[in-house]
């Protein structure tokens, strides 16, 4: 097949541009990561003098780390699934009071991030000074009630966060199930229990299994909670071990690279299995139609279910925020402070201290640029993947979705090497972070924009073409206006994700390019707990404002389109 010299010229240029940019952003660091993992030659020499798998053999010297990772991941996945399934069932299938409101509230834990949860639960649950343990001792208990600096503690904090992810995934499956399938079973004379076991459960199972694998893969790559809660007790998982290998002197670069590579291979396989389950195993439940789920009257039981909902939101949202606030307004935080202990000095300090304001300023600058450039780049990529008939569009999709399978810390590791070698000196500047954010958030942006793009009938663009409009003209007059809600949503999501980013930033930021989230972690370990709490709350407030703007804008925009 030959392409004429007239045809699709601007499209072809845009396509080539996108392919090169996506390839450079994603594959270039991955290549350096693999090179470092396979480098068995002189550690001082670059490029490597010998290649081999010896670094991977070195992993076997750390069986405890692998065991820790699996323990935490399994425990957190199990808890998150139980929470997610229970909440999904309660909120879609029972007549618990206030279902609508709870359903909207269920995304809040996700926006609060594992870091915030870890900081708050650390304040609550460290054996010596944890507020809960202080209260326990005040009530006459001995030593401590809970120890958050353990595998169970890390898993608990992660489960509160991932529970909201599991809820969204399982809830979507429950909602997309045609209630007629269950009614048919009952009409044929099956009992409620039998219907539940023979019809409902098999239909929901692929969705639950998919959520389990997705959450488990996320857990393997999770970093913040394990860092904050595990470091004090020297409880390391793979990601924190990689970080530790990088931070110590001399750094164990090959080992960190081998560990990172193994981790991302495992995650890649799991996410592949996840996609297979989601696309192949969903039977007839997913018809693209939203059904009004059949609501079961659970009688008195609904007050118990209501209590479960309230407990989840309390433990994952209300309690962490209150704890941080409580700590941030004390000179030295304690469970039972004297009246003289209260102060606003930490907030004043957070707003005046050079390190904190610079970091926040840098984060806002990065957020604005990541979101703006990201929407342009990712919008173009989405269009190329889903709308153009350019050859290789499918390959671009695989490349841009790739960062999802790589923990950001591991990706940052490859990026550090890659951009250290890059002829233009951007290492240690905010530009490096900007490039890193644009890379690791590719899947987020492309998925958000393409989700809206796929809802826009293709013939709307084709019709503009038949009216004689050139590629640029129809993108400007038809595609972009119709895509507007998606673009705004993507902009705000990218902004929020940038402000909260930890895994990639912690490795890539330099002394002159500090950003807020790693600074919060640094402050936690190096300076005062109370100041850290204040900084975390300020960051949360910025995110909360962006998210409420997001919700308001998307609601108005979609209302306009569906009018």
């Amino acid at each position, binding site marked *: *097949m*030959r*392409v*004429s010299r*007239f*045809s*699709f010229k601007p499209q072809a240029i845009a396509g080539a541009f996108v392919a090169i940019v996506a390839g450079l952003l994603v594959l270039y660091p991955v290549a350096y990561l693999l090179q470092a993992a396979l480098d068995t030659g002189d550690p001082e020499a670059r490029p490597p003098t010998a290649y081999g798998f010896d670094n991977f053999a070195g992993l076997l010297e750390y069986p405890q780390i692998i065991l820790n990772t699996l323990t935490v991941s399994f425990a957190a996945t199990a808890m998150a699934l139980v929470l997610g399934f229970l909440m999904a069932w309660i909120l879609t299938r029972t007549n618990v009071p206030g279902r609508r409101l709870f359903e909207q509230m269920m995304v809040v834990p996700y926006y609060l991030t594992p870091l915030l949860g870890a900081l708050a639960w650390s304040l609550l649950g460290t054996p010596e000074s944890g507020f809960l343990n202080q209260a326990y001792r005040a009530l006459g208990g001995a030593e401590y009630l809970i120890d958050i600096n353990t595998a169970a503690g890390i898993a608990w904090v992660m489960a509160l966060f991932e529970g909201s992810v599991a809820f969204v995934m399982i809830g979507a499956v429950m909602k997309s199930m045609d209630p007629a399938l269950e009614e048919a079973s009952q009409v044929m004379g099956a009992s409620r229990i039998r219907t539940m076991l023979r019809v409902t459960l098999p239909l929901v199972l692929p969705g639950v299994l998919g959520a389990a694998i997705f959450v488990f893969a996320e857990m393997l790559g999770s970093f913040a909670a394990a860092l904050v809660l595990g470091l004090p007790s020297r409880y390391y998982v793979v990601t924190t071990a990689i970080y530790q290998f990088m931070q110590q002197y001399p750094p164990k670069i090959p080992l960190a690279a081998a560990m990172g590579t193994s981790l991302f291979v495992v995650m890649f396989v799991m996410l592949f299995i996840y996609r297979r389950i989601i696309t192949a195993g969903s039977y007839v439940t997913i018809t693209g139609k939203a059904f009004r789920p059949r609501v079961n009257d659970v009688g008195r039981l609904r007050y118990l279910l209501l209590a479960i909902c309230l407990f989840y939101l309390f433990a994952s949202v209300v309690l962490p925020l209150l704890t941080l606030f409580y700590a941030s307004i004390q000179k030295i935080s304690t469970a039972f402070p004297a009246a003289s202990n209260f102060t606003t000095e930490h907030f004043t300090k957070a707003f005046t201290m050079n390190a904190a304001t610079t970091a926040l300023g840098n984060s806002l600058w990065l957020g604005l640029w990541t979101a703006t450039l990201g929407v342009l780049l990712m919008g173009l990529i989405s269009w190329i993947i889903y709308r153009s*008939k350019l050859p290789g569009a499918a390959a671009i999709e695989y490349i841009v979705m790739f960062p999802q399978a790589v923990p950001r810390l591991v990706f940052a590791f490859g990026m550090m090497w890659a951009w250290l070698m890059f002829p233009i000196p951007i290492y240690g500047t905010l530009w490096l972070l900007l490039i890193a954010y644009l890379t690791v958030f590719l899947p987020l942006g492309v998925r958000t924009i393409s989700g809206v793009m796929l809802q826009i*009938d293709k*013939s*709307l663009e*084709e*019709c*503009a*073409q*038949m*009216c*004689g*409009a*050139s590629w640029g*003209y129809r993108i400007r*007059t*038809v595609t972009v*206006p*119709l895509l507007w809600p998606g673009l705004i949503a993507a902009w705000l999501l990218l902004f929020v994700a940038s402000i909260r980013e930890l895994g990639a930033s912690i490795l890539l930021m330099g002394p002159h390019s500090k950003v807020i989230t790693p600074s919060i972690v640094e402050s936690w370990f190096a300076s005062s707990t109370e100041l850290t709490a204040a900084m975390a709350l300020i960051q949360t407030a910025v995110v909360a404002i962006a998210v409420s703007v997001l919700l308001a804008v998307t609601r108005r925009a979609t209302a306009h*389109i*569906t*009018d």
Partner: protein
Amino acid sequence: MADAARTPHIEVENLEIHYGVVPAVRGVSFSVQPGEQLTLLGPSGCGKTTTLRAIAGLEKPSAGEIRIGGAPVYSSARSVNIPAEKRGLSMVFQSYAIWPHMSVFENVAYGLRVRRESKEAIVEKVDRALDMVQMRPYRDRGASQLSGGQQQRVALARAFVFQPAVLLFDEPLSNLDAKLRADMRIELRELQHRLGITSVYVTHDLEEALAMSDRIVVMRDGLIAQVGSPGDIYNTPRNAFVADFVGSANLIRGRHRADLDADGLVALETAGGVVYGMAHGRPAGADLTFSVRTVHLQLSAQKPAAARNVWPVRVARSVFQGDFTQVNVAWGDQVIVVRGAAMEPLAEGSGAFLSVEPRRVVLLEE
């Protein structure tokens, strides 16, 4: 344009289109005369829409050539593929493709704005186009506030307002309800005559094809099954597929009795008796198939006077369907379907006489 009448406006030659390795169109050739309305008719998956989209430039063929006004817009041999926006065509889409973020006026004005027409010209032309489709009162409405039929009219106005050389229609009426569809059919035909524009129309609806077209191309499995005027296609289908797809027909198979051929008719021996039909110049071999339209058969209690094609039958089932009554009769070893508007009431199980004029019995090419 003195010889415009002689050069076909659109020529499609040996067009082949593959989706990956799956062939959608497998070598199709036809041409459309200036001002002619040609319809591509066929069941879903026959390649009709793909062919139309290839003419539009929205689908890239694998081989063949498409010429518009004599100039190739696609040619695999000459490596030409002019993008859709430069072919000077226009199209009405199945989904209407009304842009929800624009008013009716802006939707229709789009093609004129692309062509950088002056403000006054745009207003004048859009208003004239909206008048033609009776949508002038809605000109400032948001496009998403329109009903299906109104959207259809706006889509139509938008398609012809910039005086394209050719109008393409991709099942434009298939999303409308039955009654509105019947009205729009007539309206569209009238508009087409007034504009005198060359058009290619795609549909799977037989009545639509018969009502709308100067010529019909029946397609099946990516190939052309028959080309002809609506009358040709309906009255003398070439094969069993066309006979059955274009209306409802009874197929009667049997052995050729050349010894009984008389008066230019072909005689066929079947289990139900001897059937006489017309060959229409088609070769008559040993084993033949006739096609008889269900509406061309007569059923009566008394034996009709005709000498040929009268057979005694038994009424198996009689179903009143409103505009017509369908009667299934047992004839030889098969069931024959008879449809008529004003039929004698015949009790199920009773005997009757089935008859048909020999000219209504058509020999098929196998």
